[in-house]
């Protein structure tokens, strides 16, 4: 086998391990993308969310075989973008970050949402983030942050 080719944060990589390995483990252990958090390893919490071709996935539920040819973006890549800057600022403004463990996944969920719906209502935001658990905030601040980012970053998405 030639190895699994994919793009990670804009860089072409070839993974030589098993096609059955978890994307989550590979991102953390091989590529040292430790912003991708392991909260449950069964697709329930969203802490390991990444973007694959712009779509939000729980990386714990993705086998490496499914990554062939895809473009994977983690916070390590996303934090270099202008969109991140707008989201980061909005999250900071309303103190939407407490323990921080869910946050990289949450911000990527916001990115996935705003990419398909740049002007979401509060209900849209709550729906878009509903696969990402946060135990600290009660979600109000996070929802507000995404709403602020959508306004401040008008035109970016």
């Amino acid at each position: 086998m030639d190895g699994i080719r994919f793009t990670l944060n804009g860089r072409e990589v070839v993974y030589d391990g098993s096609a059955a390995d978890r994307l989550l483990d590979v991102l953390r252990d091989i590529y040292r993308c430790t912003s991708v958090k392991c909260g449950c390893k069964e697709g329930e919490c969203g802490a390991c969310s990444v973007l694959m071709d712009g779509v939000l996935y729980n990386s714990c539920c993705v086998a490496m075989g499914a990554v062939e040819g895809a473009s994977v973006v983690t916070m390590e890549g996303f934090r270099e973008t202008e969109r991140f800057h707008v989201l980061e600022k909005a999250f900071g403004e309303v103190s939407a970050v407490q323990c921080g463990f869910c946050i990289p996944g949450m911000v990527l969920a916001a990115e996935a949402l705003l990419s398909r719906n740049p002007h979401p209502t509060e209900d849209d935001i709550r729906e878009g983030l509903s696969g990402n658990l946060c135990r600290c905030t009660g979600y109000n601040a996070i929802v507000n942050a995404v709403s602020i980012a959508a306004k401040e970053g008008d035109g970016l998405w």
Partner: protein
Amino acid sequence: MDRISESVVKKDHLPKVSGRSVYVADYPTEGVLFGKLLHGKVARAKVLDVDVPELPEGYFYVDARDVPGDNNVNIVLDDTPVFCRETVEYIGEPIAMLCGPDEKTVERLRDACVVHYEEQEPVLDIRTADHVFFDYHFGHGDVDKAFAEADKVYDEEFETGYQEQAYLEPQGMMAVPEEGGRMFVHGSAQCAYYVHGAVMRVLGCGPAGVHILQDVTGGGFGGKEAFPSILGCQVAVAAHKCGKPVRCVFDRREDMEYTSKRHPSLCRYRVAVKDGRVTAMDIDVKFNAGAYSTLSAVVLQRGIIASPGIYNVPNLRVHGSAVKTNTSPCGAYRGFGAPQTFFAVEMMMDHIARDLGVDSLPFKEAHLVKQGDATSTCGKYHFPVPIPAMIAEVDAECDYRAKRERYARPQTGRYRRGIGMSMYFHGAGFTGSGERDLIKAVAKLRKYADGTVEILASNGEIGQGVRTTFPKIVANELNLPLEKVYYDHPDTARVPDSGPTVASRSLMVVGELLRRAAIKLREQWIDGVEQEVEERFREPDFMIPFYIDKFQGDAYPTYAWAVNAIEVEVDTYTGITKILGAYGSFDVGTPIDYNVVLGQMEGGFLQGIGYASIEKMDYDAKGRIRNNSFSDYLIPTTKDVPNLKCMLHVEKYPDGPYGAKGAGELPLVGAPGAYVEAMEQALGGVRLHHAPFTAEDTLAVIAKEGL
């Protein structure tokens, strides 16, 4: 709003939001051994023998025989073993740790271990459990006389279930043997010095033989108060044996099943009423402690002190016990015993009121404590009790009284509505004389030659904001920009013991020490030189001394107060309840940062609503916890309570920094009382006695009542 309350961007915001913060699982794996616990699989048994598979080179089996010091983890008592003794007392009890360089190999070796047990019948029912860890009695007045003279006597039982902290980052600790023989333990934890004391004892070394660093911690909520001491001891013993760094990070199922949770409770309230007023309460509180005593003594103390609620009860008798069962040891969880008893007393007051033909709100209002009144332990409410104003605030926000009256009328149709209210306090700081006699907090400020100031204290940032609020206090007193003051995660090798990150105490108690230290530094400030100042805890002089043997005196210097209202709509076809609104007024004194405090209130309130409604965890007839994943144990998502409104009411506390009181735990405490009262109303006025009250419970009532 005071200037100090104006929100800033939190100091740990950027590293966290950008994913750069290093949690314990994020340290590089090179040269670090994976540690995996071999958990007992039966609830109660003698461990006869363990068949350990042949271990490849570089792999280790670590158990009680490898503990160089004492095989007991220092918590309150010392009954929790690091690795099991001759018996296992609950499903999941650690028997050994397998360590080695390859994770999958370690797991395979662990799973190949065969444990031979001589099984015994486990004790699983707290009604019949006869091993009592802690047993307390207190009260005042003449309870028997009040019951003899009563017009009516009420006698009801209330139950609450487990609650899992469900911090998003699972438990994890790592131990690194350092040159010179010192052991470095770091990880996800609330209380670096608790881990320090525990590891010292287990390694049999002095204070300098070990140091503990709190890593960036992905949520605690009490769950990382005592448990990291246990896991920290296990990895320290393993690293000591292996001579290499050892890290153990739990997976979610392991964490949910085997780590400490909120104590399930069974409370019996007997209440005497004369001329429409409560004249006496005779309360029996029983907590399921699980297999070891861990923090149950102090959890129970807080629970029973709160058991008469915020009402004047002229004659009171309280009995509290924490009993042993062969289940995972319970421990600290935000609220710390009080959510259980506040639920019981709020429901009891509601039931009495309805029996007397009045609504629960005016009935409770008629019994409310006020400034100057005696507390349940014959201490005093030294400061104003702002509950009436807070009730008015909540009423104004959600039209409580009108809805309460409207929903009380007979309802028909598929959807039925209800609204309920709870009112309560949270005693700020350690219970009783703990701050003065046990913790004796010390905090320091170190000023460097360049004029930056470092805060030296042991309170851990767990999301609650102390890395921001502590520097805000110090910068304010020193008239420095916030960038010039910083607070890193504590390492016991370089910070004094300012006490644990628990009991809603960090900001109120340690924050005040830092404020005083900053004033001292300001007075001594010399440009261009390094300076250090220190402050020590002093008990406020107004306190009535507390005696734990009699449960008498001021259990807390002051109280944070709250009023919650929850409005529900029940779908009688499905049993599913929609929360139309959750409204809370919270008084935690001056917010040191408005956003930080609001975030605590919103997060805590939602956790409380989860506890009241969907967070159901139980064990089966063998003592095995059945709800061990986020599929089986549901916590609220973004969509569960979109209409969550928290308001801050400020009653300043003169001995807290700028008037701040304890905040973190308060918002969780009252949700079950408000929610279940709302459910009663939506379900046609039934009397309910337990929380969580789930969709299944709702369906059962609908079927029984023919709604």
